């Protein structure tokens, strides 16, 4: 058992729509996809983001490109037009997700 940060086993890109931030998490290969599919659940992502994400987190699966997509509501301090955050568009939310640690079985 060892703990790894998601940044070691995947890459990501985040986007925004209003107060919703989405983070696409992309594995490097099929094996990596199976791992993130099992370990990176919507609940765990919501827990990871803590007070940064005030609403629900929905997870979509895209096995065709080895990716998961997390759609997070209430995640941008009101959204681009209203937020006081420097990163009101959540460009750095992808990096924030990649900080998350998971346990690998090998």
């Amino acid at each position: 058992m060892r703990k790894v940060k998601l940044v070691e086993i995947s890459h990501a890109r985040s986007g925004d729509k209003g107060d919703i931030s989405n983070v696409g998490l992309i594995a490097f290969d099929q094996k990596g996809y199976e791992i993130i599919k099992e370990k990176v659940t919507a609940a765990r992502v919501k827990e990871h983001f803590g007070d940064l994400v005030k609403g629900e987190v929905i997870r979509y699966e895209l096995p065709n490109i080895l990716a998961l997509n997390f759609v997070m509501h209430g995640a941008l301090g009101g959204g681009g037009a209203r937020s006081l955050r420097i990163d009101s568009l959540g460009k750095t939310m992808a990096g924030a997700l990649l900080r998350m640690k998971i346990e690998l079985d090998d």
Partner: protein
Amino acid sequence: MKSIRLGSGSGMWPDRLDAAIEIIEKGNVGYISFDTMAEMTLPGMQKLRFDDPEKGYTDIRRTANDIMPVCVMNKVGLISNCGGANPVSAGKIAIDVANRLGLHGTRIATVSGDDTTGEKCLARIKELKAKGISLDHLDTGEKLESIEGRIIAMSVYLGAEPIVEALEQGAQIVITGRHTDSAMWLAPACYEFGWALTDWDRLAAGVIVGHLAECSGHITGGNFSFWQEVPDPAHLGFPIVEVYENGEAIISKVEGSGGLVSEATCKEQLLYELHDPAYYVTPDVVADVTGLRFEQVGEDRVKLRGIKGKPRPATLKACIGYRDGYVGQAFAFYAWPNALAKARRAEEILRGRFQMMGIEAYEIRFDYIGVNSLHGSLSPEPEVELNEVGLRVAVKSPEESNVIKVIRDIYALDLSGPAAQTGVFHLPPREMIAMWPMLIPREEVQHEVVVTEIP
């Protein structure tokens, strides 16, 4: 099989001009489209138009003076949403410039839709309400009454249809207002191939092509996780998409330009601002990318296939711009020793003073730049003594005077605060215009295409 090459000249305002010119001159494209509007650009444009009925466009002057003549010279069609909240005004400017430059025979189209400001906007809202149309907030379900008295403008997101109409009328230059960005690439594909407006799979392919192209450098190595591997980023080539009649496409860029196109850059852009992959909603079609495949077929060439489409929705997205208070921010800097501790002490002092002064605010926010201003509470405590920390104070208040009081107090800490505060600057208080998204039935929305030929 028939194919058409479409360039991407801009993903935001401002974007790099040289990369767009490179595509027009060397990219062998039939059309080049310019997205100058992020989602939050629109409220700002609505406010400009509210304050001055002739304003509210984005990049029209550069588009008309620097890009249009190059397109005409190289016989490349130009489509741009730089009309913003005032495509009619922007169109007038384009026509005026074309006349001055002597672009004889050039046809310029202005596409305007459902854009109303001030009194006209309020009348339009009343009209929609009278028809029993719900104007609830699209994401939160809140009622429109909560922003009554603060509304300044409304715009409806149009799709590809009006742009196709403009092309069918022979327009070489198309100036639009608020469209879905992807429509600016779907439309020329639709026009060139004669795709029916109910050919859902092909329309979906065109929309996804637009989605991939609409953020310029985002797919050619910009904002890329493996940015260290991107060659020559100062001369990043913007994307060119070769669309085939059957809906397949190849994403590439001008040969010899900087940047790179790979399956990884394409995947990152596909996921950008995507929600449900089976249900990507646009005015033209609902796209389904769950069967999409990317395949590297050459250096900086990635093939795209497998997109499916479902019928377009009965509703269109509209955005109301409304006044949402005043916002200001100020920055101050502290150096070693104890940079972070000094910034923390400054925050403590300021909070106490704001309470003492009775500052009324929706929100007062403190960030430490270099420590936690981007990842917030996810940022670990620094393990080493930092060289410097920036203190940022941002405030949103119903009253501008409160914002000014907060900013003043940060300056005053130079003489009354922790050791060696320096570099204080602020951004002038501005009125915040927020966006209220909602859905209205598509039959409620009219659009107009006006084509002018330069004599």
